[in-house]
């Protein structure tokens, strides 16, 4: 999808005042956060597991060429095809060409974030192929013509009422009298409709949770079983994955799987964890005749070069957004592209460009919860700070901020003057604000006081208090 990250601020404001969205977002905290904590706490050494996960990914990234070539050779040995896509356009062309050659009328899709990234659905629809999302959440947002708002629960922003309305409109032409329907009924209705699509699809497209160099396999992790019906029933299976999804061995895949399910949904293991290797073998009686894997770059090799390589460790679990106070308040759509939350605020500027995503690295309180739950220990707050620095270096920081910083820096380099002014200013503010203990309005700080009060200072500067403290301790 086209990035709308430049509209972050108005979109965030709108999200804060959307009662349906706020109702839906309450479920994130209640569900994901508590469930993750439960399974992580009972795991004997989750810290050690995270460290191992980090090391595996760092080692793989430092030898990515070796492992990609090994993976490619193993896919060929299993009878599959490997395609390399540098850009969105190349990825779209590869997949639409495969569908054309297969004379595809209907394509079923398992959830793929790489596919969202390169707008596969739009390209396939333009090529005249009916494209059906089969993950229930993805199916719901496809009906609503919306992008996902969470990387593992794409329709988390939708209420049951909204889903009932969507199904009424699309499955019953608006004829249903019962407006609000129960969850089992909704799930069953979607199951019936999508079952027909699974059985008649010509091509199935999935993503991959990880790729294994040792065997040329991909792992698919789902709870619904839609991924397996997508790759097992049609004549052709196409998978698309970022080049950073590799791990060297099956043991390394196991480490990643142990981290992924626990961090993502708070499960020890999802209902279906599947290892796919090539097309059907000669004696097989089901499974696709062709297997294709599209290895996607789309900005990843650029990240490999510099300080943002660490972001390529990401295994797309969504724990960072589940634990983010900003995401919890505004949901995923305000971030404007396919990846929301902390990982999105790092990835989107690096893939889409710094200039069109100015607000994202700044939409962060640097509280560090994301880093503390990240299964591969990505220092997300540091990376966001680095992006802010890059913005400053590229002159992308707003002029008022730059001037403010310049003025502050001028004083900060003159400590006596700085101290004198700080003392005077804080003393005055302390006296004026003593009675209420806070300011509702402050000159030059309207941006701050519009959303919250400014606490009155305690009449003395931090430095003075520090000196006093040190004196007392001696």
């Amino acid at each position: 999808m086209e990035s709308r990250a430049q509209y972050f601020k108005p979109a965030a404001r709108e999200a804060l005042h959307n009662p349906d969205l706020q109702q839906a977002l309450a479920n994130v905290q209640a569900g994901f956060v508590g469930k993750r904590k439960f399974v992580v706490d009972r795991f004997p050494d989750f810290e050690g597991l995270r460290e191992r996960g980090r090391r595996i990914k760092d080692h793989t990234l430092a030898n990515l060429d070796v492992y990609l070539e090994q993976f490619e050779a193993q896919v060929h040995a299993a009878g599959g095809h490997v395609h390399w896509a540098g850009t969105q356009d190349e990825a779209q062309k590869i997949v639409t060409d495969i569908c054309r050659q297969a004379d595809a009328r209907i394509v079923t899709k398992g959830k793929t974030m790489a596919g969202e990234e390169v707008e596969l659905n739009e390209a396939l629809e333009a090529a005249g192929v009916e494209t059906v999302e089969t993950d229930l959440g993805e199916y719901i947002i496809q009906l609503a013509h919306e992008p996902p708002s969470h990387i593992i629960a794409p329709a988390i922003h939708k209420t049951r009422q909204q889903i009932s309305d969507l199904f009424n409109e699309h499955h019953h032409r608006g004829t249903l009298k019962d407006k609000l329907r129960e969850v089992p009924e909704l799930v069953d209705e979607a199951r019936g409709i999508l079952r027909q699509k699974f059985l008649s699809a010509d091509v199935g497209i999935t993503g991959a949770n990880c790729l294994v160099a040792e065997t040329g396999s991909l792992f698919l992790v789902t709870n619904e079983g839609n991924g397996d019906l997508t790759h097992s029933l049609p004549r052709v299976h196409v998978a698309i994955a970022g080049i950073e999804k590799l791990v060297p061995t099956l043991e390394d895949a196991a480490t990643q799987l142990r981290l992924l399910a626990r961090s993502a949904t708070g499960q020890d293991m999802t209902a279906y964890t599947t290892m796919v290797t090539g097309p059907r073998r000669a004696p097989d009686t089901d499974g696709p005749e062709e297997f294709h894997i599209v290895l996607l770059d789309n900005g990843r090799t650029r990240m490999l070069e510099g300080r943002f390589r660490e972001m390529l460790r990401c295994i797309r679990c969504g724990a960072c957004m589940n634990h983010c106070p900003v995401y919890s308040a505004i949901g995923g759509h305000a971030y404007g592209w396919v990846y929301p939350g902390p990982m999105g605020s790092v990835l989107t500027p690096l893939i889409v460009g710094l200039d069109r995503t100015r607000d994202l690295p700044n939409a962060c309180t640097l509280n560090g919860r994301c880093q503390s739950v990240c299964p591969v220990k990505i220092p997300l707050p540091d990376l966001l700070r680095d992006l802010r620095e890059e913005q400053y270096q590229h002159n992308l920081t707003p002029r008022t901020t730059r001037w403010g910083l310049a003025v502050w820096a001028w004083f900060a380099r003159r400590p006596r003057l700085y101290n004198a002014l700080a003392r005077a200013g804080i003393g005055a503010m302390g006296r004026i604000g003593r009675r209420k203990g806070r300011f509702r309005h402050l000159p030059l700080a309207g941006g701050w006081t519009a959303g919250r009060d400014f606490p009155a200072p305690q009449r003395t500067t931090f430095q003075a208090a520090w000196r006093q403290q040190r004196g007392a301790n001696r």
Partner: protein
Amino acid sequence: MSDARERILGRIRTALGREGPPDAEATRSARQAAVGDGPSQRPEWQGDDLARFQQCLEAAAGTWVAVPSMAEVGRAVADYLAERPAGTAVHRAPDPALDAVDWPDHLTVETARDGRAALVGVSRALAGMAETGSLALASGPDNPATLAFLPDYHIIVLRTADVVPWFEDIWARMRQTDGFPPRSFNFITGPSRTADVEQTLQLGAHGPRSLHVVLVET
């Protein structure tokens, strides 16, 4: 798109500062140095592996019953189906291990090439994994992959001797097996489920609505 291949690999090599062709042997020992010799951190439990397997399977909403021999599997399947609106038509996997099953006369048993016509499917798992209560099934002519996903009622036959503790044991075992990896190697942990509507858990999303394991004591 072979030029895309060269372009991407070229960019990677530049980013990694490679000067000569990479050495696969050196990469292997670098992995060893980075990750260490020991196994991954993993769940631990008191007591035997079979009990752990059963407990985790139950936690994932799967059910199980133990029978003394392969012949008895038929009776166990019939009992299970009798309590459910599942009819009496059974689609069994062609796996030769299931040839020893003694099917009660009132069941119509068909050997399935895939799962398209099956309401009740019976497959055989190569292994059970105690750490998570998962069943490992290998696709192939003996166990068609779709038989595990299209039926409403999926019944899996597992020998208790095939229960192993961890992922690492599964890999060690499978690497010795001819034809590994198969096209699809499935870890199944309970029936199909979704929480996509308001985070409310609902079983039977796209795959089986229930999962039943018949443990054959060996």
